[in-house]
């Protein structure tokens, strides 16, 4: 009972990280229509930025801001300088996938070349532990959960109640139609890269806040649950991704507690396979089905 409760506690923390990462991933895909396989590596890069900030003796809060800012700037530049030119040049869908995975390798090995094959950790004040409803959290974990809730609320407000959010949803559903309705889709796409990049950077930093050590492949490994979350939620569906994050976060931590920690990602993978077999369009997915037909 006790292990189960604490596993659920861990699950909530993992779900929080996954929600931030998954919403960023799915939003980017939905609005820009580019599947960015370099996402995990940009997370790692943001984690290294945070590492540099904390190593300089600055606070971890500043590191979070720096990581998010780096993620946003890097994503916008990546899209402006590389992805969009390739698309304009007429690179087809498979070409673009290869482009993004090439970027992934370049970023990952760039980090390896700069920082070396070591284990790194953020320098933070030693957290104290807090008991809530039978679950034990460290203050860091509580901060992660709070950050995720705030980020998700902001995304919700943005998508529901602002013009930009409406424009994004319109662009995601049908870019041609959106442009014809007078939406500056290029600007919307830029902003989408910035917002999803910021979430990506934030996710990278909170991911490494929650682990004892990270390496140049930490983000790439985390791509397994992120993709599972995105597919479970219906790709391009931010709300689906939030729900998916909760399911996969808790399921994988329960499996880790009951079976073995090695099975964390396997559970995410099994859920991914089941979703692909039973409901490839995801759980929340009116738009996703339409896109699939259109593709």
């Amino acid at each position: 009972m006790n292990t189960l409760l604490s596993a659920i506690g861990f699950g909530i923390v993992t779900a929080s990280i996954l929600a931030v990462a998954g919403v960023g991933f799915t939003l980017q895909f939905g609005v820009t229509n580019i599947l960015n396989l370099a996402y995990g590596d940009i997370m790692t890069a943001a984690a290294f930025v945070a590492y540099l900030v904390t190593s300089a003796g600055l606070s971890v809060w500043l590191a979070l801001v720096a990581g998010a800012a780096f993620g946003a700037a890097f994503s916008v530049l990546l899209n402006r300088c590389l992805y969009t030119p390739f698309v304009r040049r007429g690179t087809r869908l498979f070409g673009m996938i290869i482009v993004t995975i090439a970027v992934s390798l370049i970023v990952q090995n760039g980090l390896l070349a700069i920082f070396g094959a070591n284990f790194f950790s953020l320098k933070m004040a030693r957290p104290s532990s807090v008991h809530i409803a039978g679950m034990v959290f460290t203050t860091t974990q509580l901060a992660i959960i709070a950050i995720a809730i705030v980020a998700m609320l902001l995304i919700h407000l943005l998508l529901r109640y602002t013009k930009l959010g409406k424009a994004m949803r319109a662009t995601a559903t049908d870019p041609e139609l959106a442009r014809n309705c007078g939406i500056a889709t290029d600007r919307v796409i830029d902003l989408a890269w910035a917002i999803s990049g910021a979430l990506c950077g934030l996710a990278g930093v909170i991911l490494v806040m929650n682990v004892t050590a990270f390496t140049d492949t930490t983000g790439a490994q985390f791509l397994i649950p992120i993709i599972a979350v995105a597919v479970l939620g219906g790709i391009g569906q931010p709300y689906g991704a939030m729900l998916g994050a909760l399911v996969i976060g808790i399921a994988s931590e329960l499996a880790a507690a009951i079976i073995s920690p090695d099975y964390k990602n396997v559970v995410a993978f099994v859920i991914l396979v089941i979703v692909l077999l039973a409901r490839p369009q995801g759980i929340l997915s009116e738009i996703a089905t339409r896109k699939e037909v259109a593709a």
Partner: protein
Amino acid sequence: MSAAWQFYISTVLVYLGVDVMACWGLNLQFGVAGLVNFAFIIFQAAGAYTAAVLTLGPATKGGFQQYVGGAHWPFPLPILAAGVVGGLLAVLVGSFAIRRLRRDYEAMVMLVVSLIATSIATNQVGLVNGPNGLALVPKPLATMVNLSPLGYQWLFVGITAAICLCVYWLVHIVTSSPLGRTLRAIRDNEQAAAALGKNVTGLRMLAFVLGGVIAGVSGAILVEFISAWSPGSWLYPETFVYFTAVIVGGSGNNLGVMVGALLVPVAFLEATRFVPQFGPPGFIDALQWIIVGVLALVFLWFWPRGVIPERRRRFPPAAQGEARQPLTSTRTGR
């Protein structure tokens, strides 16, 4: 030629054979059928493990390596079995990954399959000896033929070349037949092919399985040659090397991807062997990967069709084609 050079050259030739085979397999999937199989390397790995355990013999309890299904099969059988396992794994992966989904969706799922396969092989130590992998795989025929080590090297080059020819024959038949034409049609316009009554998912699955068989065989030859195999040799970026080779050589063209295999995994990676080491450990490897990534980007930008592009297939207009009887008759009838 000195013995050392002969040894080196024969080794490189075997690697070349393995890479050429793998590139043909990937080309069949990616270049011809448009399947973005980012898990390609796991099919090679599955073949390698199969061949290894089938030549190593049953695992001894408490021995230094633990694995399942050990046996002492004579020479060509482990390689054939590797092909079968590669194909079966493709059926398994294809059953959930090759659905009527967007292609990028498919690529993403394949990438996850590759990552998860590595983590399973690493964590389940009893399966194929975990992170340490398998070693001391006996070389095929080594006890039967009485050759000097150098002579044996050249024998292995011969075996590899013979299997390469068989694989080429297979991919040539597929790509030059109506089946190949249909696969290219599906790659270029899935809806149109489906509208003409082609079983899109079934045919893509077929290409996927054939590619899996070839990958399995290539892995088997590699492991029989180097006699060791571990998860470190088949991380997902290795697949990317093959993708780069296919793109550089000319995706969709069997001859082109052969050149690609010569240029990328063999010439480029061998050339860096002669570069003096500098920087901290792992620095050169990291640079190598960066350069492979840049190479793929440069080719996709400047020469997306590769060094030897796929032949543009033109079908003669009805007026010139004497063989096209039905069309001519409708023309005269008009």
